[in-house]
């Protein structure tokens, strides 16, 4: 039996705000029944304030308790305040969750992010895009990378606890280990950089772009049989060519924008534009 806190059991037995909402402003569905947990979050938002929140959850005690505290947390918050809620906040509200159940709090947070994105008319958050790593649970590399960064994860088991990735057939465990390796290398590089003093010279920026492509982007593309070649760097414009299975791949444009440009902007410079070599 899991070692649940009193708070988890209390919210499981007496869930707050369980059940459907009539005329919600937004409804967000995450998870699915096949994977063992699913959450439908209803929000009523009036003048930018969440005036009511309700949920319906298929899942274990910690999934139901996470949903329950999430609805309590967001009620009365502005949309901007709610956007700042993390899965750690949910875990804290519950006086902790067993590590293997962390994905329940993550699911709550995902539902909230999705609902707020729908309200703002935005595209899905980046972790919904990316390349599927865990086929059993449909978990993308972006979601794994984000979990590693947010929770400072170091082992495959930890990634499984937070995202479920690798918890099914287990075939992707080696790939997750590789993602941990390059994400942590990148985190270490960033930590080192942030301790160094800006500003950067053009040359430093170029070196960094080369390093990020070599250490992070290329290993990720290679897992899918693709590759990348750096053609030119001019100011903040980076020209690359996709190789291997990425060349001629219909998703090439998406890869350029979501993987290459997104990563370079995040790590090196927000002004970077990535172009494909003609």
């Amino acid at each position, binding site marked *: *039996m*899991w070692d649940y806190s009193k708070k988890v*059991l209390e919210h*499981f*037995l007496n*869930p707050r705000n*369980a*059940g459907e909402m009539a005329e919600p402003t937004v409804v967000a*569905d995450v998870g*699915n*029944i*096949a*994977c*063992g*947990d*699913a*959450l*439908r979050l209803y929000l009523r938002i009036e003048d930018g304030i969440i005036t009511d929140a309700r949920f*319906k*959850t*298929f*899942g*274990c*005690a910690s*999934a*139901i308790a996470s949903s329950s505290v999430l609805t309590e947390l967001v009620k009365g918050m502005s949309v901007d305040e709610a956007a700042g809620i993390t899965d750690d906040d949910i875990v804290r509200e519950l006086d902790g969750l067993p590590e*293997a159940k962390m994905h329940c709090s993550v699911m709550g947070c995902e539902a909230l992010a999705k609902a707020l994105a729908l309200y703002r008319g935005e595209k899905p958050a980046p972790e919904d895009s990316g390349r*599927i790593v865990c*086929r*059993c*649970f*449909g978990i993308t590399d972006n979601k794994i990378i984000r979990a590693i960064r947010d929770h400072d994860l170091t082992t495959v088991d930890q990634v*499984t606890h937070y995202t*479920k990735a690798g*918890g*099914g*057939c287990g075939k992707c465990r080696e790939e997750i280990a590789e993602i941990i390796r390059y994400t942590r290398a990148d985190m270490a590089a960033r930590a080192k950089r942030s301790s160094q003093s800006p500003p950067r010279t053009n040359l430093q920026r170029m070196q960094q772009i080369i390093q990020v492509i070599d250490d992070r982007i290329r290993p990720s593309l290679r897992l899918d049989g693709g590759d990348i070649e750096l053609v030119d760097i001019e100011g903040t414009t980076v020209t690359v060519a996709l190789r291997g299975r990425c060349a001629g791949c219909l998703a090439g444009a998406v890869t350029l924008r979501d993987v290459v440009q997104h990563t370079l902007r995040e790590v090196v410079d927000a002004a970077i534009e990535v172009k494909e070599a003609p």
Partner: protein
Amino acid sequence: MTNTPPVYMDNNATTAVDAEVLQEMLPFFSERYGNPSSIHNFGGGVGKKIDEARCRLAGLIGARPDEIIFTASGSESDNTAIRSAIATNADRRHLVISKVEHPAVLNLARHLVTGGFRVTEIGVDAMGRIDLDELSSSLTDDTAVVSIMWANNETGNIYPIERIGALCRERGILFHTDAVQAVGRIPMRLSELPVDLLSLSGHKLHAPKGIGALYVRRAVRFEALVIGGHQEGGRRAGTENVPGIVGLGKAAELAAERIPIENSMVRALRDRLESSILASCPDVSVNGDPENRLPNTCNISFGYIEGEAILLSLDIHGICASSGSACTSGSLEPSHVLRAMGVPFTSAHGSVRFSLSVQNSDADVDRVIQVMPGIVAKLRAMSPFSPEAPYFQNASQDTCPSGGSCS
């Protein structure tokens, strides 16, 4: 939690040590603690109690006392049996098991694959039954051993041991059966069956944990797993777990008397529990083969709700059961037995196993029947899924998100 004693319906997980068993064991902890291998009468006399226990256990399963080796667990017996079978058939590199074996067999076989063995895992149908033709056609001249459980721990399904053994014997292949769930619940006479090796465990039949046994038919070649002293005729080294052995002996004697009760009273309790739940809760189904099942086991899937949530809700009422849900296992996938049967994930996640024993009563069944509909209704009211909306509409999510590689 209420103050009344729990309603314990998880006897396939473990059973309570019977009061008579405990009484018989107690002197061997502190008064008669001698080593049965000693020359002096203080120790040597203990050996006679071991002989008695061996005779009692042999009586329960219809074997001869010299065919019984005491071990520390069912898992040890399974490991010893299969490793002995392949060691004594060194030119054969193939094993046949079923997909619904206990992990003690399943994971051992998969481990042996890394050592160069081929393993055929026989599938099961929707009711968990194995296909004897598939089993028969999987046997080759290279097959060292077939290991098929006598009864399944999750569904209670009973497998056709006599027919499987006959198929093996025709081909000169050793046959092992993991009978951990069957011994003490259904009658068996091994002297009349084509079974070469059989594993059993004490704590499933009201003996303590930490004691098991392996039956090795006379004339079957055997190689010990635990090498060392001469105990158990050199077939299992290690100073005997005397209290455990004495306890298993007494439990075997009691079980031999109680098998008729298992198949009358316990069966009636189980049947009433099952039919009441089916009648009072909508969208439920029974997993397993209703025709060939242990009398004590009932595995029910509750649609649209999750097993751990059901178990915790039962626990609040002092009711102990178990589930094939992913959330209870620590893994993230539901029971390998239910998946092998092709039970939809949606039903597997909401499966609950009730396993009874001679210690259950009508009042126990009444208590479960009383609370079950309320628990199901409460969790259903909270679930986003229902017969009208079995999955989220905005995505094809009735299977795995990526197209179902995990099924």
